[in-house]
């Protein structure tokens, strides 16, 4: 997995691409740190280029949510393609995150 982080007027946007799996834990730590430091109320994960996410990847989103909640930051999972969309559906992530097309 690779990622880029951009500041947006109301928070930040993290674009993820490739496969998000167990081995990306260290990389994702930097994303979590960025959320800790961020200004604004919305953190958008752009998933349009993410090919796959496994259970460890879902766990990383949960960790991000855990950090974001006390700061009143909302996490949005945007633009997931078929495979990732199906995985988010099975996990009913729409009950925890704002999931947008």
């Amino acid at each position, binding site marked *: 997995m690779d990622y880029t982080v951009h500041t947006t007027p109301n928070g930040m946007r993290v674009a993820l691409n490739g496969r998000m*799996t*167990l081995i990306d834990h260290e990389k994702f730590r930097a994303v979590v740190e960025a959320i800790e430091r961020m200004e604004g109320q919305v953190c958008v994960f752009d998933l349009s280029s993410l090919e*796959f996410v*496994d*259970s*460890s990847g*879902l*766990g*990383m989103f*949960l*960790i991000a949510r*855990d950090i974001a909640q006390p700061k009143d930051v909302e996490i949005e999972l945007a633009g997931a393609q078929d*495979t990732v969309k*199906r995985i988010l*559906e*099975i*996990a*009913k992530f729409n*009950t*925890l995150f704002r999931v947008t097309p």
Partner: protein
Amino acid sequence: MIPALDLPAPIAGPNRISFSDCRVLVVDDSRFNREILSRFVQWVGIGGIDFAADGESGLERMAAQTYDLVLLDIDMPVMDGLEMCRRIRATPGWADLPVLMQTSPASDPAGVRCFEAGASDIIGKPINAGEFMARVRLNLEKQFFFRNLTDFHRRLQNDLKLARGMQKSLIPDNRVLADAGARHGLMIEGRFEPSDELGGDFWTLFDLGEGRLGILAADFSGHGISAAINTFRFHTLIERIPPHGYEPAEWLGMLNRPLKDLLPVGQFATCFYAIIDSREGTLSYAAAGAPSPLMFLDGQVTMLDASGLMLGVTRNPIMTADQVPFPAGACLLIYSDAVTEALDRQGHLLGEDGLIRLVRDIFPHRENRLARLIAAFDNEVQRPLADDLTAICISRL
């Protein structure tokens, strides 16, 4: 006269080499050289030094005594250093022993012949004390760390093998499956295959009485040791909170609460729990983010919705619960995500569509459905799998 060098004292400790415990064999036909080399070796702090004057007596020494490093000259009577080195390397157990050879710049400047014979390192003549000592220490340290790592690896492998046996004992064996199947008029097949020595998958059966059989399959996030420990915790939890007398969703909710307290944020379990009632011909289930089990009946494959928040994520679980007919001839396939997330030879995910296609091809014949499915699966996907594989196939007779 050769000046003594100021060398830093070796730091003691279990992860540090103790040179005084090392034993070195010096093989050289010149008594003068043996004495000089012996002095250098002593300066390194080596505790044990033995000598031989030719290759053959050197090998005799080695047969009688274990050495940590062997120092060879090339030109010697009876058997030269190159031949002795070749024989060392041909001996099982000495393949990684540090062998240092003294080379002469005139005959073999780059030490090519020495390395071809299997030398670990070369020391050019005339011998420079500092270089000599540095190379001896370096090669001894390398050997020490290599041995440490090998020992550690071996110990870990043994531990993992034991732990794997323990994990397998949590999963119903063939006898249990045959007994439960006979009592409930079912054919039950199971496959459990951790991707590493240990895995995060778990499944089991419960005889609930009155013709009811419970099937629980769970998959802890991640894999390897930490996920495996979670399966043991889960097993303990189930012993404490057995499913008897509860509806599927009710029971999974009861398991969710302690799991939420137990698991750190980011760890969770997907879960599918079903009760097959062979008298009523029904299957009642509840699920928390599990892969959609497949129902095969009259040549048709349908997917059961097993979506839901995984166990251990929140205090208020959101699960899917349903009851569907499970008449004679029906077959249920429960599987871990490793199946649909397997990659085919072109690198594409097998996916739910791929699995449904395989099931449609293979399940019309009732015998050995799961074994034949796995064989067809193996034929299409790349091994090894990235995740733990569990598959359970339950056919009503």
